[in-house]
């Protein structure tokens, strides 16, 4: 197996006069879980479509599992499993048939398809629904079935576009569990998400993109330390007060009606609380969401 699951060199995608992805380079190592983050319209879906061979690049080189997307589309789709943003299960077929019919597109022999279908239905815990129609399934069940379907061809890499959007917290936890399980089995995972907690919990590495460019990339912990220090003091409902920009070693920022102060230690932030009498203050460890907001929101909401 290739050491690099994805090798993108200066990839660019234009739609007419709009440049959706602008000479962007990154790599994903085999066996790692990699997150693609960014505001709506940042270029995440375009990158994913390019990797799935659904969108030819304007320029640049893109290799998936060592295979060039420009000429090995069929071989790439044989080794990749895709869970798109919108569920596209076949409403004319039941749960089991959805998997069996899909297996045929990969030319799996009947016995192999049957065996994998049973194993995957068990893996996503849909045994009791195996003969149910798709419209009888809950949102979480459909999502789990989508993941099962993407695993039919025993892929080396699973690509998930917003895997848990619109699902309740219990279902999200259950899906994260499955994805971690797959990751431990050695599967490379590429996912895009708007949930920072999802990215923080699932991804070994991630990159945040905006306007087709990479803003930052790295391990979630490192990104938080580098761009959101370690602690943050959040002050809400303080429109009338000025932002305190004079504290040494503290980064001050205004996001809408909130003031945010970032520092490596909580001690540096504690004195500020006293200055905001009557306002809602909250001292907490900083997280990926802070990084995201700082990098993608600057100039947009302040």
């Amino acid at each position, binding site marked *: 197996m290739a050491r690099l699951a994805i090798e993108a060199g200066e990839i660019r995608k234009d739609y007419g006069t709009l440049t959706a992805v602008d000479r962007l380079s990154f790599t994903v190592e085999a066996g790692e879980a990699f997150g693609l983050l960014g505001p709506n319209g940042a270029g995440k879906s375009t990158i994913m479509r390019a990797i799935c061979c659904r969108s030819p690049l304007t320029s640049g080189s893109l290799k998936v599992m060592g295979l060039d997307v420009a000429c090995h589309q069929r071989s790439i*789709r044989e080794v990749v499993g895709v869970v*798109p943003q919108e569920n596209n299960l*076949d*409403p004319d077929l039941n749960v089991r*048939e959805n998997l069996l019919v899909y297996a045929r*597109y990969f030319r799996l022999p009947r016995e192999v398809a049957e065996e994998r279908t049973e194993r995957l239905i068990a893996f996503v815990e849909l045994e009791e629904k195996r003969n149910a129609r798709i419209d009888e399934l809950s949102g979480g069940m459909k999502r789990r079935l989508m993941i099962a379907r993407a695993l039919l061809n025993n892929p080396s890499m699973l690509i998930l576009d917003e895997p848990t959007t619109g699902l309740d917290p219990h279902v999200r936890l259950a899906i994260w569990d499955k994805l971690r399980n797959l990751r431990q089995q050695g599967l490379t995972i590429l996912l895009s998400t708007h949930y920072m907690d999802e990215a923080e919990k699932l991804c070994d590495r991630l990159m945040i993109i905006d306007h087709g460019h990479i803003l930052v990339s790295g391990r979630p912990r490192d990104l938080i330390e580098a761009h959101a220090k370690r602690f943050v003091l959040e002050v809400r409902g303080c429109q009338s007060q000025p932002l305190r920009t004079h504290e040494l070693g503290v980064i001050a920022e205004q996001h809408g009606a909130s003031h945010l102060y970032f520092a490596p230690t909580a001690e540096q932030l504690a004195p500020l609380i006293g200055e905001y009498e009557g306002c809602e203050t909250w001292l907490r460890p900083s997280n990926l969401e802070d990084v995201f907001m700082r990098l993608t929101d600057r100039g947009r909401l302040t």
Partner: protein
Amino acid sequence: MRSWSKVDIGDVAQVWRRNRDVYRRLWRTEIIAPMLEPLFSIMGFGWGVGSLVAGKVMGVSYLTFVGAGLLTFTSLLRALFECTYAAYFRMVYQSTYDAILATPVEVESLALGEMTWGVTKSLIDGLIVLGVLWAFGAVLSPWALLIPFIIVIGAFWVAALSLWITAMIHDINYYNFYLGSVFSYLWFSGAYFPLDSLPAWAGWLAWMVPVTSVIDALRSLMMGHLTPLLLLEMGYVLVAFVLTAEVAMRALRRRMIN
């Protein structure tokens, strides 16, 4: 013929099998309902209009004459509906094409699989209508056994044309233009009356549409009047299919891979 070279027959078969499996679940509604209309139109033409047309048309009863037209239209319309509304539903509302294109199946095989399925439905309906016509005594020659082949070739052209339109439109209401043209053409196709009743220019226009050749070929087989013209007609329809399918496959690739 760039697109044709990308077709993988094995993949075409898998796309076809998906539609067949769905059809098998729903076959009662799929077979019975669409059969009522032609059954009544054959009765209407046989007993109703046929009794008013006292003389023979081209040397045969009006039911035999018009039967060829009814058989052609009833069967080819199945391919049309399958590759317009049904295909549009699968492509846009159910995202079935997106799901399939995440597998090794290429757009061109998907397109040909959809067309082949439309043709299959045409063939099923065609066989039933042919049986009904035979029961009414409208089939005069054993050469009629070759009619299914003619239906298949004609349905392939209709399926390709319909899928091309499906790949081009972004609003399901645009099919109204297509259907409007098809039903207008019906009156100039030689289905209801001989084409030589038309002004010459209208006749030539009618012959440009491959379906006119299908109706004529099918009628000559029903009557047992075989001439070399039959081969010419089928060649024309076949060439039209190959070219139209190429255009349809390119259009669907532009639509799905962008």
